[in-house]
């Protein structure tokens, strides 16, 4: 055939017509569309049978349900964490951290997947076997013990009351180290205040039954206690057409709680305790207090000591305090009268906005106010919890011979991780050779993160037992993968402020990292390798066994594990039992007095000792609920501002890191464009410092500095700067790392004068425009 132009054209036209007549084009179009629905990089979750498992999140102490899908190929996997409708502290509700816990659990990029050994010089990381890893740790500890330097080790864990904390403490004690410290919590402050005034360490607030609640500087809706339970109580105060309950929030910032409160008393930061006492005084003057308080020990003057009443009359004049706290007197009186007259009113103290454990004298002042109201043991008042019926793991262990790194010089010893770290760094009384970071990510959470980081850097051998490649793992020589709470055994005790005690057990529900072991199991294995006294102190093969022993009195262990929790059935109403020397409520704490005298050696040097501790006012008021000027007020010279954290359930205070979903829902008043931290300042303060909304500023304290975008917010108290807490991770993958900066780098941590607990509610800082 002649292949001329004509033939070519014919052929081409024919081909075009042919292709169009064939199903080729529609078929290709259809295929390409189907392809867009099956992109290999878009996951295609496999289905399967669904089951729910009960457990308790140790982060919040509330019951949750894990929704688990059992699929043919992928096996069992948790797809959701929901609130447990049957758990009294949850009732189906959940907080963001728990609802998004799976994002941390399953992220292999941020989990420790096997034991790792790091070469400090080269930074090289080597994967090692469990047996090698345990040998390393046990070897290091036994060498210390053999050379009589067992005390030169320090172990940190998040919770002294959980099984891991108990095992760790026994391990260290039996090894001969007095140095274990935990994340400080308001539970400890409350226990001190409770014991000193009532002889009761376990107190809670019956928020759900209260109809008038005054919160003294504690973020009731932003992280206080068991957050879900608090919210359910809060919901009961709201109703239609009238609110059945009233919430009064006393704090310097129009926070979430202040914003949702019926009444916001914007006081000068740190003056909350004084206001509680001024309210006592007003009630006293107006004669609207519970008359039984008059019989409390220390209400009237005693031999040698002025009583509470005299102190109130002398120091807590309503005018003076209202002026000092910067609030209108009329408002203070109005709230006091309403509080006094309310049927079921309660005054609440708790963690500070910065997440610190609170100041002991403030807690005592609030307890005194509750006693004035006469709500102790009454519905809607302050209740004593039934102590958790938990058993000790084994017999007592003799105290180590060496004094602890810090706290030995005080009348009573409390857990102060910051003081210990600083003492170790100063090598006073001694330095440390080994640091065990058993969860809690202290290098990030601090409370003074830079101090913890420096300690880890300067300690020859650092071990991190953690589920995550977190900031603590980054500075450790030996990293041991522990289980996430959905993967392993563990427990948790009553959250702060709860009116009833509760105990939670979590068990392995799914497996994300096959190599991960329960932190308790790791410690027990080390104890076995150490042998001798240490092995005797911890006669368990596994955490599960230790838990079973611990919860013997709670009935069948398997049933308990299946149910996930034990909660005190009924709140204890009725006059509380005062386990005080006087058998009464003690406004003048004899226990505290006796402890101080004992520590001082004699009553003559008592004043010296109190002065040494920094208790202002000396022995005249030291044993009464009173108010101490916050240490940070002393720093306010020149251009200095007070820095306070902004807590939120969208971030975290200590504990696990913020999750990717939590990062996602952060408002741009916390994290601004390109992951910049946002700090808040009152317009007047900003103007005085020549700063504008949106400026990049440098917030500097003695401990560290933060770079942030300035947000001018009318709801922020003048003279202060407010910084979101829980941001600024360097670890946890691209979804979490590099978002904002860490408040705990700049937080100034001091010790509460009397209790010696670390506090960091307020820090003196300078704020200036950042360069660049």
């Amino acid at each position, binding site marked *: 055939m002649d292949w001329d132009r004509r033939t070519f054209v014919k052929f081409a036209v024919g081909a075009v017509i042919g292709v169009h007549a064939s199903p080729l084009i529609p078929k290709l179009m259809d295929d390409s569309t189907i392809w867009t629905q099956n992109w290999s990089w878009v996951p295609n*979750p496999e289905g399967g049978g669904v089951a729910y498992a009960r457990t308790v999140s140790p982060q919040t102490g509330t019951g949750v349900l894990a929704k688990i899908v059992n699929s043919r190929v992928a096996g069992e996997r948790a797809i959701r964490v929901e609130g447990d409708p049957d758990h009294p502290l949850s009732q189906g509700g959940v907080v963001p951290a728990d609802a998004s816990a799976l994002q941390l659990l399953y992220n292999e990029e941020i989990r420790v997947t096997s034991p790792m050994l790091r070469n400090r010089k080269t930074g090289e990381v080597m994967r090692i076997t469990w047996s090698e890893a345990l040998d390393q740790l046990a070897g290091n500890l036994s060498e210390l013990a053999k050379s009589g330097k067992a005390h030169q080790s320090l172990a940190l864990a998040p919770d002294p009351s959980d099984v891991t904390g108990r095992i760790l403490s026994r391990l260290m004690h039996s090894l001969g180290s007095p140095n274990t410290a935990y994340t400080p919590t308001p539970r400890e402050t409350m226990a001190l205040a409770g014991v000193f005034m009532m002889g009761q360490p376990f107190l809670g607030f019956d928020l759900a039954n209260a109809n008038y609640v005054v919160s003294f500087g504690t973020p009731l809706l932003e992280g206080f206690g068991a957050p879900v339970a608090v919210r359910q109580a809060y919901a009961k105060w709201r109703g239609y057409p009238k609110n059945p309950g009233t919430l009064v929030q006393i704090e310097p910032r129009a926070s979430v709680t202040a*914003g949702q409160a019926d009444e916001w008393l914007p006081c000068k930061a740190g003056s909350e305790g004084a206001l509680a006492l001024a309210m006592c005084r007003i009630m006293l003057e107006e004669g609207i207090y519970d008359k039984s308080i008059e019989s409390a020990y220390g209400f009237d003057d005693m031999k040698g000591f002025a009583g509470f009443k005299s102190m109130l009359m002398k120091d807590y004049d309503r005018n003076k305090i209202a002026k000092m706290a910067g609030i209108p007197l009329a408002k203070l009186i109005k709230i006091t009268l309403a509080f006094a007259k309310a049927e079921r009113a309660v005054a609440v103290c708790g963690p500070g906005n910065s997440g610190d454990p609170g100041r002991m004298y403030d807690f005592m002042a609030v307890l005194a106010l509750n006693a004035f109201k006469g709500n102790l043991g009454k519905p809607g008042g302050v209740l004593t919890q039934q102590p958790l019926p938990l058993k000790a793991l084994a017999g007592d262990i003799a105290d180590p011979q060496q004094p602890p790194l810090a706290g030995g010089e005080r009348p009573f010893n409390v857990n102060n991780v910051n003081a210990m770290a600083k003492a170790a760094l100063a090598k006073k009384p001694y330095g440390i050779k080994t640091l065990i970071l058993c969860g809690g990510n202290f290098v990030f959470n601090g409370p003074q993160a830079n101090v913890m980081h420096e300690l880890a850097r300067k300690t020859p051998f650092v071990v991190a037992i953690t589920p995550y490649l977190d900031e603590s793992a980054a500075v450790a020589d030996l990293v041991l993968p522990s289980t996430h709470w959905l993967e392993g055994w563990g427990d948790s005790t009553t959250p702060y402020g709860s009116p009833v005690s509760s105990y939670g057990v979590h068990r392995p529900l799914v497996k994300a990292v096959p190599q991960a072991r329960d932190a308790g199991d790791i410690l027990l294995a080390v104890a076995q390798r150490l042998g001798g006294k240490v092995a005797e102190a911890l006669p368990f093969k596994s955490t599960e066994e230790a838990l079973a022993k611990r919860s013997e009195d709670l009935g069948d262990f398997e049933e308990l594990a299946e149910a996930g929790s034990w909660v005190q059935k009924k709140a204890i109403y009725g006059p509380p039992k005062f386990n005080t020397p006087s058998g009464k409520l003690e406004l003048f704490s004899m226990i505290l007095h006796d402890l101080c005298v004992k520590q001082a050696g004699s009553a003559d040097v008592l004043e010296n000792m109190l002065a040494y501790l920094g208790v202002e006012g000396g022995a005249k008021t030291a044993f009464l609920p009173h108010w101490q000027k916050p240490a940070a007020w002393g720093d306010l010279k020149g251009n200095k501002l007070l820095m306070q954290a902004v807590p939120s359930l969208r971030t975290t205070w200590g504990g696990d890191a913020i999750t990717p979903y939590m990062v996602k829902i952060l408002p741009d008043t916390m994290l601004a464009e390109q992951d910049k931290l946002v700090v808040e300042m009152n317009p007047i303060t900003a103007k005085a410092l020549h700063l504008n909304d949106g400026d990049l500023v440098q917030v500097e304290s003695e401990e560290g500095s933060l770079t942030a975008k300035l947000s001018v917010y009318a709801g922020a108290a003048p003279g202060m700067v407010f910084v979101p807490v829980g941001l600024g991770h360097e670890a946890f*993958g691209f979804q979490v790392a590099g978002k904002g900066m860490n408040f705990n780098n700049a937080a100034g941590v001091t010790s509460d004068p009397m209790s010696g607990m670390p506090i960091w509610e307020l820090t003196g800082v300078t704020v200036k425009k950042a360069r660049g």
Partner: protein
Amino acid sequence: MWRKDQVRYGMVIDVDKCTGCGACSVACMSENNVGVLHDETDKIKSITWLRVYQIDNGKPFPDTEVAFFPRPCMHCQGGESGTPGQGFFQEDTDPDAAHTPCVSVCPATATDYDDATGIVSQIPTRCIGCRYCVAACPYHARYFNWYDVPWPKGTPRALSPFVSPRMRGVVEKCTFCYPRLQQAKNKTFLDGSEVGEMDYQTACTEACPSGAITFGQLQDPGHKVHKLIKTDHAFRMLEKLGTNPKVYYTSKRKWVRMLADNHLSQAKAAKAAASGGH
């Protein structure tokens, strides 16, 4: 008149109970397999089916007040609104009367107004990504997938098999957890009962720790939402636009009602003011 198979699902959010914790938002994301991008501060490219807005009354210290507005998809019907006494709720039972802002503009029928439930659906695999619906929605409830979601290794294990993860280039939004309704229907089909109020609840409603969200059938006097929308403090966002949304809010605080909807009918605003602030 309502046909027997017609119901209208709706939501009432108590702004006074909302503490802005974000649990609803997170529960929603985990229920519906929403992804997390590299930069989530870029809110206008970030996907949050249920976004919690923080607002304040704009007053200087110390009179500042804050409130939170959780904002899911409003599942608008459009058309005529009812009277304040009815809580403005009056939906046309005629399917052709529905004039949802986003549904009417979609060229590919990728979003639809369900005549049986009043739920505005979204079919990501049908969506061509023209974003006309995004432009049409006054509540900013519609989100476009600007990016491929970067799932870190291992995290797809936490994905729910009941909701397909979306590909880039399509629009997504709150569906009132529609798969939950299907599951509830499957369940009740077996025992022959009706889908009851508690059989079908959205993930956000369940998760809210302060119980600020109520979900149910607006037209059914037996459901809680039916009563709640008739209270003096109930309102809808942007009432005057005529979107006829099925998400209601309640607040005792007048400034909140005014800020969220400065178009409340005069009578209702006055009545609400008389019944006292928060």
